[in-house]
C-alpha cells in the first residue's frame, strides 16, 4: 500500500512539472513559436550571402582580421535566375566597415519583399551571424527608403537566435504576430522565420 502511495505521489510530481513546462511553453509561444508554414506573399527576394574572409588585414595588432563580407542581390520571384547584384557590405567583429554599391535597388515601389540570409562556408562564426543581423537591418532600411514592405525575413535555423537578438538591438521588441484580427500597434513590424521551417518570431518597432 505504502509503495503504491509513494508511486502515486511521484506521478503527481512528474505531472505537475510537466504541466508547468507546458504552461511556460504556451506563455512563451509568441516569443519563439513553432510553425510549419506562414503565408506572407512577396514579389521580390533580397538575398544576403555572408562569408568569413581569410587573409585580410593580416598585420600585428590588427582589429580587422575577422572580416565578414555580406553580398546582397535581389531578384523577382517570377525571374529567379536573373539576380541583380545590389551591394557588398564588410564587417569586422560585428562593426560595419564598408559598402560597395553595384546597382540601384530597382524594385517596384510598393512591392513586398522577402529578405533571405544564406551563409557561405561550412562553419558560421558568431561574428558572421551578428554581421548577418546587421546586414538584414541595412536591407530593411534600404527597402523602406525605396517604399517596399518587408513581408518576411528568412534566416538559417542555426543563426536564428543571434539574428533575432541583433534585430532587438535596433529598437525592435518581440511581439505577437500582427494579423488583421489582432493588429500590433507599431509603425514597423518585422517577421523572422527559420529555414528549414520551425522557428518564427515577430518584432514590433519600439520608440
Amino acid at each position: 500500500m505504502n509503495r503504491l502511495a509513494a508511486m502515486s505521489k511521484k506521478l503527481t510530481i512528474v505531472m505537475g512539472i510537466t504541466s508547468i513546462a507546458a504552461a511556460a511553453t504556451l506563455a512563451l509561444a509568441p516569443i519563439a513559436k513553432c510553425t510549419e508554414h506562414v503565408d506572407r506573399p512577396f514579389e521580390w527576394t533580397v538575398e544576403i550571402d555572408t562569408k568569413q574572409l581569410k587573409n585580410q588585414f593580416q598585420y600585428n595588432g590588427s582589429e580587422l582580421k575577422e572580416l565578414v563580407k555580406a553580398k546582397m542581390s535581389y531578384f523577382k520571384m517570377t525571374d529567379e535566375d536573373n539576380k541583380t547584384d545590389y551591394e557588398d557590405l564588410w564587417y569586422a567583429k560585428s562593426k560595419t566597415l564598408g559598402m560597395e554599391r553595384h546597382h540601384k535597388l530597382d524594385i517596384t515601389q510598393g512591392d513586398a519583399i522577402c529578405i533571405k540570409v544564406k551563409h557561405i562556408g561550412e562553419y558560421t562564426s558568431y561574428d558572421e551571424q551578428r554581421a548577418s543581423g546587421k546586414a538584414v537591418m541595412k536591407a530593411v532600411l534600404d527597402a523602406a527608403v525605396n517604399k517596399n514592405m518587408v513581408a518576411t525575413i528568412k534566416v538559417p535555423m542555426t543563426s536564428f537566435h543571434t539574428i533575432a537578438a541583433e534585430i532587438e538591438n535596433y529598437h525592435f521588441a518581440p511581439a505577437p504576430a500582427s494579423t488583421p484580427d489582432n493588429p500590433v500597434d507599431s509603425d514597423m513590424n518585422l517577421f523572422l522565420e527559420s529555414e528549414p521551417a520551425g522557428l518564427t518570431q515577430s518584432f514590433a518597432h519600439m520608440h
Partner: protein
Amino acid sequence: MIRTHERKNIRRNSGNMLILSGVFITLLAVLALVACSFGGLFFVFNRIQTTTDELALTGARKLNEQDRIGQMNNMIARCRQLVYDAHKSHTYAYEDASQLNQLAEQLHDEAREGAILLEAERQKLRVVAVNEAKSAITERYEELKEGHSLVLPWLKVAIPTTPMVEFGYAKDIRSNVAELKGIDDLEMEDNKQSFVLTDSHLYKENIDAKISTDTELHFRISSLPAPVQSTVAPARCILAKQYKSLVAADLPSVCKVEMKLGVDTGIGADAHQEMKSTGIAVATGGEKVL
C-alpha cells in the same frame, strides 16, 4: 786624329734597351696598379649599389606584405560609400519618414564608428609597416655586410655603415583603388573634387577624400601601384628623381635606403674615399578590389 774624335762622339747602344724596358715596365706596372685600383673601385661601387637596391627592395616588399596597404585603401574607399549612403538615408528618414528615423540614425552612427575605427587602424598599420620594413632591412643588412670587407694590396674595403632608411611615395604612381560607382551623388562629388583620374578611373594618391556631408571624418587614400590587367605589380627599383617624401600621415609605398662604404685605394698616402649609394624601391602593388 779624326778617327779618335769620331770615336769619342759615338755612343754605345748596347745598354739602352735595358733602361727603356725598365722604364716601360715600371710605367706598365703603375698603370696596372691604377687600373686595378679604379677597376676595384668600380667593382666595389657596383657591389654596394646592388646591396643597397636589395635592401630597398626588402623594405618595399615588407611594406605591402599580403596587400595590407592595398586592402586598407580599398576599405577606406568603401567606408566613404557606407557613410555617405547612411547619411543620405538618415536625412531622408528625418525629413520624410519619421518611423525610419531611429533605425537610420543608428545605422548612420555605426557607419561613422566604422570610419573612425578604420582611420585608427590605418594609423596603426603605418607604424607596423614601417617598423617591420626597418627590421627586415636590418636583418638583411646583417647577412650581407660581412661580404663587403675586402683587403688587397691596392684596395681596402670596409664594412658598409648601417643603412639609413626613409619612407615615401613615388611620383606619378596613383592609388590602387578603382573608382566606385553606384551612388550617383557621390560620384559627381568625387568628379567635382577631382579625387578620381578621368583616364585611369583610379583614386588619386595621398588624398584625404573627405565627404561634404561629414567633414570631420578622414578618408586618406595612399599611393600604391594598381594592377595592370589583373596582374599585381611586383616590387621594383625606381629612379631617385621619382622619390617623394611623405608630407602627411599617409601610408608609405616607397622605401629609400642610403649606405656609405669606406674604401682605401692604396695609391698615395691620402687615398681614403667614402662611397655613398642610394637604393629606392616601390612596394608590391595592390589589388583593385577587396
